[in-house]
């Protein structure tokens, strides 16, 4: 299997256009001869399915939801970046590229990030043409706001529901192709394994979640757009069903897993309120445009926020990072919030949050303007906490939100397994060690609308005339293995529920591989995870059978894979003896507590290869070459 990023030669700004000009093409009349499997129907999957369908390929789209529109992209709030420079404030493709690669703490591939910035402008064009109702000014033109890690306003938004509107755009485009007959939809169908033969992806094995039926599907190429794995922490901002299974199964079939320990803990979420809490809710980063973050100067200060005078408040981000202030990147904001809470200066009954205060903005702009910008967020906050944020400052705390790590892909978004493409959050490619706000939507749509349609054609062209079939030994073997795995989980007949195990696993990963990590903690986690996993296979209880809707069975398979992923995350974090972005190793920090990178030894992507059950995976390194930018110590001061 090849392990070559295949980045095109030439100057950065010509790489993609030059590459595109030389990619092989599939003629319109030949496209219906190719079958493509796309797993996942979020921004990346739906945009890819729609675009490939429009081109004339035969697409099978799989989602475990009842409708493609439920994918978790729907929950993205704040916005999508694009280098349109509509504000005339000095933005450009280069600046978006630079902000993104710097925000990622110089742990991503230059060429990929530059292409992302280039394509950002086309995404906005496409979305507007589809009828996505972005915010506008009275002149009828598009409005922008600013986000963390940038000093320009380049974020396009649709109130606090940008992800919803962009996903509906992509979903509707896909619906059009379903009607046209180019895309066949498989709702409530979960991919449980990848079929690989001779290093080439042949198709997938999937389970119908209503009937329990296991089915095989063959294709010329398999595209995974299955999102991230933040639920390994149990409590996260991800939807309950978001999971790692599709990419984990691909990893077990030979695809390399890159930078699994690069996870993003988002600074502005509602702090947990109790033991049985099932998930954490994000409050959009856009609130940091107008909100000021603070804690009392004195840990013993128990007065209500309104009674604490200015002189007794510590606006710690504004003081420490005067040029970016409250708009520092997410990893920096999160670590500083954790530090304030660790010092005992947390706010709220459980002292587990910091204030995000919009009082000044309400005074300056008026309540109406704030309501127009953030009304839905305030309402959501009020529902969850029973506190009115127009009167009392919001309490926020970091929570797992996004995973920069994912399957390794080359410049064409193909994994090291031939014919297996990976898009969006499921791949590792564009965000390095930390993702900037409003960049996930950008990447998902860039991959699906504008990258894959070109690179996939290039892969398919020489394979014209190849017949695909499920009638092979590889399919039969994989199907049997899937059935055995389902039966194994059902037959344990122990005493504990899946949720109870997932909560315990999440606690271990959060404690030792969360916002900050150290060698001893990671070693501890590597002891505790296998012990808990052993108990899982002895003491798990699933009621019911595999022949009908069975949510516990679905969860059990996902949690089984989270156990294995958790180990790999810790192993990866342990092997990276530096701090970068969201990966903060306590042993490696500057004197003022910032992440201390080690470019001499760790300017690489860590790509892990599965070698078998209970085997330590092999680490492969893709060295990152910086031809255009000079990695520097990130400074937002």
């Amino acid at each position, binding site marked *: 299997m090849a392990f070559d990023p295949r980045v095109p030669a030439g100057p950065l700004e010509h790489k993609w256009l030059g590459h595109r000009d030389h990619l092989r093409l599939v003629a319109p009349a030949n496209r219906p001869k190719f079958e493509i499997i796309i797993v996942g129907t979020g921004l990346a999957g739906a*945009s890819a399915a729609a675009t490939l369908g*429009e081109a004339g390929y035969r697409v099978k789209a799989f989602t475990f*939801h*009842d*409708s493609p*529109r*439920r994918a*978790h992209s*729907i*929950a993205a709030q704040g916005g999508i970046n694009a280098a349109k420079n*509509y504000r005339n404030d000095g933005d450009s493709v280069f600046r978006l590229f630079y902000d993104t690669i710097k925000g990622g703490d110089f742990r991503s591939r230059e060429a990929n990030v530059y292409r992302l910035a280039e394509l950002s402008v*086309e995404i906005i*064009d*496409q*979305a*507007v*043409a*589809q*009828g996505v*109702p*972005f915010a506008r000014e*009275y002149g*009828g033109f*598009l409005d922008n706001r600013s986000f963390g890690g940038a000093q320009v306003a380049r974020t396009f938004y649709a*109130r606090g*529901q940008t992800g*919803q*509107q962009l996903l*509906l755009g992509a979903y*509707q*485009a896909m*619906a*059009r*192709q*379903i009607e*046209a007959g180019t895309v066949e939809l498989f*709702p409530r169908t979960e991919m449980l394994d990848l079929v690989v033969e001779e290093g080439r992806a042949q198709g997938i094995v999937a389970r119908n979640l*209503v009937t329990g039926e296991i089915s095989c599907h063959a294709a010329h190429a398999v595209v995974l757009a299955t999102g991230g794995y933040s639920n390994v922490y149990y409590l996260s901002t991800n*939807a*309950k*069903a978001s999971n790692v299974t599709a990419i984990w199964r691909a990893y077990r079939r030979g695809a390399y897993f890159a930078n699994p320990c690069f996870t993003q803990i988002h600074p502005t979420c509602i702090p947990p309120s*109790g033991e*049985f*809490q*099932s*998930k954490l*809710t*994000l409050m959009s980063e856009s609130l940091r445009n107008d909100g000021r973050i603070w804690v009392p100067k004195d840990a013993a200060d128990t007065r209500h926020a309104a009674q604490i005078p200015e002189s007794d408040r510590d606006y710690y981000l504004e003081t420490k990072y005067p040029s970016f202030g409250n708009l520092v990147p997410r990893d920096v904001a999160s670590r500083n919030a954790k530090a304030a809470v660790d010092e005992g200066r947390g706010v709220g009954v459980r002292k587990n949050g910091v204030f995000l205060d919009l009082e000044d903005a309400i005074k300056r702009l008026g309540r109406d303007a704030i309501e127009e910008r953030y009304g839905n967020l305030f309402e*959501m906050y009020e*529902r*969850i906490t*029973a506190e009115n944020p127009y009167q009392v400052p919001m309490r926020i705390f970091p929570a797992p939100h996004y995973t920069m790590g994912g399957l390794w892909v080359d410049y064409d978004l193909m994994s090291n397994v031939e014919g297996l493409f990976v898009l969006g959050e499921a791949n590792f490619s564009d965000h390095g060690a930390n993702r900037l706000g409003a960049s996930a939507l950008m990447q998902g749509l860039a991959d699906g609308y*504008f990258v894959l349609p070109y690179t996939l054609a290039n892969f398919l062209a020489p394979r014209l005339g190849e017949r695909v079939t499920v009638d092979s030994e590889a399919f039969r073997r994989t199907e049997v293995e899937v059935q055995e795995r389902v039966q194994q989980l059902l037959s344990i007949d122990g*005493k504990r529920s899946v949720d109870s195990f997932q909560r315990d696993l999440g606690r271990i990963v959060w404690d030792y591989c969360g916002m900050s990590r150290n060698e001893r903690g990671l070693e501890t986690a590597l002891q505790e995870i296998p012990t808990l996993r052993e108990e899982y296979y002895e003491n798990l*209880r699933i*009621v019911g059978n595999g022949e*009908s*809707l069975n*949510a*516990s069975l679905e969860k059990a398979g996902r949690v089984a894979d989270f156990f294995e992923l958790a180990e790999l995350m810790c192993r990866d974090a342990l092997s990276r003896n530096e701090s970068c972005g969201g990966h903060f190793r306590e042993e490696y920090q500057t004197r003022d507590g910032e992440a201390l990178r080690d470019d001499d030894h760790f300017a690489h992507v860590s790509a892990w290869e599965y070698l078998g059950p209970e085997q330590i995976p092999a680490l492969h390194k893709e060295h990152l070459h910086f031809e255009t930018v000079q990695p520097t110590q990130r400074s937002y001061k």
Partner: protein
Amino acid sequence: MRLTLKVWRQDGPHRVGRFETFEVEDISPDYSFLEMLDVLNERLEERGERPVAFEHDCREGICGSCGMMVNGQAHGARARTTVCQLHMREFKDGDEIQVEPWRARAFPVLQDLVVDRSAFDRIIEAGGYISVSTGSAPEANMIPVQKEVAEAAFDAATCIGCGACVAQCPNAAAQLFTAAKISHLNLLPQGQPERWHRAVNMVEQMEAEGFGSCANYRECEAACPKSISIDWIAKMNRDYLRAKLRGVKKMKIAG
């Protein structure tokens, strides 16, 4: 809190269902309604009984997966709230709560509180899009849109497709959902070329799916967690009528 739940149980599609009664204890007022059901399910599993099936995912009121009748009201009594955002502080200790699935012929029950809402997807497939293939879009600011129009389109587009409007309607009509989707696109300049086809295709697909007729009960609007206005139904009817007067017939416009 201690509560008595009367929950609809149905083992599968086309099976006979019944209510089952459960007592749940130690419920914190800070739990969401779904977290309360999580607690119930964990206790059922401990006893070896099949947990109650219900749909949910984002648990922040945007994915549209969740939905159930709580004491006869879609998503419960609190206005503008999905059931995942409904918190137990809305209830009193000792309350009896009745929980049922959406009830509509076009939404057949799959198990317990889970129903099949794929009819909504087929309404969208009939015409709920602007036919613009990837790559053919003009520069975004070439299409100025009046701010008021963009805001109105957003108000319609905010629909999460949960189905509460259908479930709450005495006729199980899907007018509010369909009207919201048609209006979002028919308001915008980008949506004009397909305006009449869209109205006819989507309205007639809605009728073919077996939803009931609108009789202006306005229950849908009251139940909608996203405050979608029934004004859109009037707009949809207008567009549909104007399209029919132009002689537009349902036809496949997707390509």
